[in-house]
């Protein structure tokens, strides 16, 4: 249990986070067994741990993709930017995801039929920005990741490193308070990994975005401000 170092109120604050998945009638998996976590604004934090330790589940809960279990154990608390996130409706959580959280995934997860520009615009449109402004914002974000020239290309025409940079541009286009990255370098060779990591570090330093990333890679962990280590559904 690591106490937050930050003096300002935490951006993300979780208490008693539990998650049990029911795979069959008798077969349940306790992915999280009561996790407390606090992440301050501007921090760059790595969540590390072996497979099955619950790090992805924790990230999905922090990213408001899933809710913590409410019906067993001590009552969970989850505060995002001061709001009680456990009480939010699906529509409200979707809205926060669109406007205040950016996601980067291990396998990039770009829409294959859309160009790099359109992929980035999509996130901007979901946040409520209209056509021409969404295009401008998307071009700025692509410029930030150094891919302005590749804006018209579709994902299959881009290298893995380029695709991940497009995904980062998509995560940044709405200037979210929080960027969540699930194994962002997991599918990249070491030099591309360095590039992507440097990019995330730079954005964190330049615009003060909070970055939380899940990783296996000790080098990535070492590049972060803090590491949260997980084992068997608990923070070690």
């Amino acid at each position, binding site marked *: 249990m690591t106490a937050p170092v930050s003096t300002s109120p935490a951006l993300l604050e979780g208490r008693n986070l539990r998650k049990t998945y029911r795979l069959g009638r008798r077969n349940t998996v306790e992915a999280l067994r009561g996790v407390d976590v606090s992440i301050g604004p501007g921090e760059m934090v790595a969540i590390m741990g072996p497979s099955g330790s619950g790090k992805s589940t924790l990230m999905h809960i922090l990213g408001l993709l*899933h809710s913590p279990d409410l019906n067993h154990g001590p009552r969970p608390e989850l505060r995002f930017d001061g709001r009680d996130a456990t009480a939010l409706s699906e*529509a409200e959580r979707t809205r926060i995801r669109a406007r205040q959280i950016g996601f980067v995934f291990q396998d990039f*997860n770009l829409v294959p*039929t859309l160009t790099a520009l359109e992929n980035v615009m999509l996130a901007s449109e979901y946040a409520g920005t209209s056509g021409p402004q969404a295009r401008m914002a998307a071009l700025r974000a692509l410029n930030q990741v150094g891919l302005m020239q590749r804006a018209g290309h579709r994902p299959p025409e881009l290298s893995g490193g380029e695709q991940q940079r497009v995904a980062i541009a998509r995560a940044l286009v709405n200037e979210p308070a929080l960027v969540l990255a699930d194994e962002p370098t997991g599918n990249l060779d070491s030099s591309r990994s360095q590039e992507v990591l440097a990019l995330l570090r730079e954005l964190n330093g330049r615009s003060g975005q909070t970055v939380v990333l899940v990783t296996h890679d000790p080098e990535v962990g070492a590049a972060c401000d803090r590491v949260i280590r997980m084992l068997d559904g608990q923070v070690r």
Partner: protein
Amino acid sequence: MRILRNLARRKLRTGLTVMGVTIGIWALVVFGSMANRITAMVDNGAAYFDSGVVAVWGGGGSAPQSNPLDIAVGDRIAQIPGVDAVVPSVQLNLTEDPTGMTMSLPPMITAEPAGANQDRSTMHIEPAEGRLLTPEDEGMNVTVLGSDIALQYGKHAGDTFTMRGQDFLVVGVLRQTLTQPDIAAMVPLSTGQQLYVSTLPSLVRGDLEPSSVVTGFAVYPAPGADPEAIAAAIEALDPELGTMGPDDFDRLAGSYADMLNAVLVGIGLISVVIGGLSTINTMAMSVAERTREIGIKRAIGASRLRIVREFVTESAVIGLIGGSIGLGLGALAVALANEAGRSSGTILFELTPGTALTAVLFSTLLGALAGFVPAVHAARLDPVAALRYE
């Protein structure tokens, strides 16, 4: 643009679905046009009878027949209170052995005193070529042809037309009315009487005086008189007389037409439903195939409504494209069939703007509806599970 690109991702499947909708809408357009035509025929007939006219013929029964009647019967009908005028007429089949599609009436030779139906009948006729008959034509072998007959036999004003073994000078051709006059060859009454008597078997003919023989009367009620009461009075006059008033016509023609229309539109609708089912199938496949993409979109902030809208719009576009092509091919089929049928006098289809518009709107709506269930399913997917979907 994005929608079209998504549809173009699976060209074969989208193509087949569009084809399914196309066939459905094609059937709807073709059968709908046929129903339009039947409705037009019945409506024009109803408009004729709406003037209150009562048709009278000999031999009883519920449908007009060509039995000989004494013209003097007309004088007795004229005595009935409320009768304004009685116009004698002769009707006989154009050919001895009438053949034609059961849906259309056989071509007829009709004879009335010239001008009798000019100011009475609501069936408005006017010449496309030449002129109408005049009282001076009485006793002459002249005829004015309905538009379908003229086309079928390729006759124009000035040509000679042989009917029932006699040569007639065509003095005029009528404009199309979409109903009975189109398949009528009009002749002066006295000419019609002679022609009619000459077709009777010699045993029946005996010493009949042609000028005293008719096959029916058109009875016009005075303003305010009840045509049904007059029809009843005529039938009471002589049980051998058959009558048809406005109510009878509506009952007879209306019920047949309604039934036929229901069958035709039903066939069209079944085809459309099949097209709709194949759209549902395509959209369901598309949702399954794009599960991961839906997960991505939901994760980065697409609302459920947005996902629903995206898929519903896609399937509505399938409906719109299929509907438009179906309408185009249907219009072509109707035009070709009418062109082919024109020579034999059977025009079976009428494509109205209303039918065309309905077909396209309907297919678009159907497409949207077909996409709705798969779209809701897509929107409800758990984003995390959808992201992991391979």
